[in-house]
């Protein structure tokens, strides 16, 4: 069977890795190229860069970062943040990313999903869904978690699959940065409703959290706990193996 994947996420702003809580209070965590290859050495299965500045200047810097990272990395690299057009997708893939992660633009212009999927293949198109509990329902938020789209996260997940997404990167806004654990209910509901891989994100604080969420998700993503050294990937993978979860070591 395909292993469960452990994905290290780097929030990149103007060429540096940063991390905040609930999308706020950003702190510098280092150089993206260095961190990405360190995570590969430690056994990360994939790297995700999220460009959280996404200004014109930041964008140019990001393409450089992608190129420098892709030169040294030999595991898959996904890049997201501020992707609005097919040209953005093309530039990012052309500089060495394997996949793009599209969030706000996917909601505001669904055609970008199908167009990107047709041009670059479904495997290159990850749709990021940021969901939040609102009145016992999971609602999709965009624009870095600030805008309530009114969309139900489960139906949106089904729709992006239909449109040609190859994977879903599912973040719980409520859990993000809290280290209280992934939102299992959200992840399970989305994962059961689609037939494409689902990456769980938001809330990882200890190894048990990975074990719990990987029962329902294909991959688990984390950022802060890896950057802060609270969990080391080799220890995490050994733990998961000991619990009977197939991971790559």
């Amino acid at each position, binding site marked *: 069977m395909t292993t469960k994947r452990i994905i290290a996420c780097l929030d990149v702003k103007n060429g540096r890795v940063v991390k905040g809580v609930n999308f706020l209070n950003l702190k510098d965590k280092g150089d993206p190229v260095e961190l990405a290859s360190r995570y590969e050495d430690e056994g990360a299965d994939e790297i995700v860069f999220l460009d959280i500045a996404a200004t014109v200047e930041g964008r140019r810097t990001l393409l450089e970062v992608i190129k420098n990272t892709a030169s040294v990395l030999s595991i898959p690299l996904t890049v997201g943040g501020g992707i609005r057009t097919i040209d953005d997708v093309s530039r990012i893939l052309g500089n060495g990313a394997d996949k793009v992660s599209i969030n706000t633009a996917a909601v505001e212009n669904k055609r970008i999903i199908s167009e990107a999927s047709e041009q670059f293949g479904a495997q290159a198109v990850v749709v990021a869904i940021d969901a939040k509990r609102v009145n016992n329902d999971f609602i999709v938020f965009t624009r870095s978690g600030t805008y309530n789209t009114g969309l139900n996260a489960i139906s949106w997940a089904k729709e992006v699959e239909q449109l040609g997404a190859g994977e879903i990167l599912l973040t719980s806004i409520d859990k993000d940065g809290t280290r209280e654990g992934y939102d299992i209910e959200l992840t399970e509901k989305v994962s059961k409703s689609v*037939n494409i891989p689902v990456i769980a994100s938001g809330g990882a604080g200890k190894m048990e959290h990975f074990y719990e969420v990987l029962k329902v998700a294909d991959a688990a993503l984390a950022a802060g706990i890896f950057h802060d050294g609270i969990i080391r990937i080799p220890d995490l993978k050994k733990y998961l193996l000991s619990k009977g979860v197939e991971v790559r070591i």
Partner: protein
Amino acid sequence: MKATVINYGVGNLFSIKAGLEREGFNVIISFFPQGDEDVIVLPGVGAFSAVASYLNSLKGKFEELRERGTKFLGVCLGMQVMFEEGTEGGISKGLGWFKGKVDRINANVKLPHIGWDKIYVKNDPCGLTEGIDGKYVYYVHSYVAYTDNYIAYSDYGVRYPAIVCNDFAVGTQFHPEKSSNTGKIFLRNFYQWVKR
């Protein structure tokens, strides 16, 4: 050692270039063969029908180079188009260097198949698999080649070829450039195979 990555589609050609460079190849990306390369690389981007039709337009050139000793490496889709026929985007003819047909994975599994799976060596007359038996390699695909002629395989719903080879061509369904250390070992073995 010179390698030309054929640019027949949009997408990530940079990684395969970087991966080959790390193992000592001198790599350029081009729409056409250069004529003096040791290896032509068919990368894993695009859809079968479009790529196959482009490559068939170069087939005459490829045959010429092949007679002069040029080797070929196909990765993922680049391997698939080396087979006789594919069904992605309508039935179309491949290069026909390997017997068999490329079709969607017909099993009750999530597609695309994305992730790491173990590779197992069956029987390797090409000497490409030293150090990789039982190790994890990275896959991203929904289609596989249906053939009995392979030197290594993986399982995902179905058992499918992971590596195929003949006297002038090698194909991998996995992405060696994305398979971390195991991928590096494979590309090193491939370098030696070309040198021979």
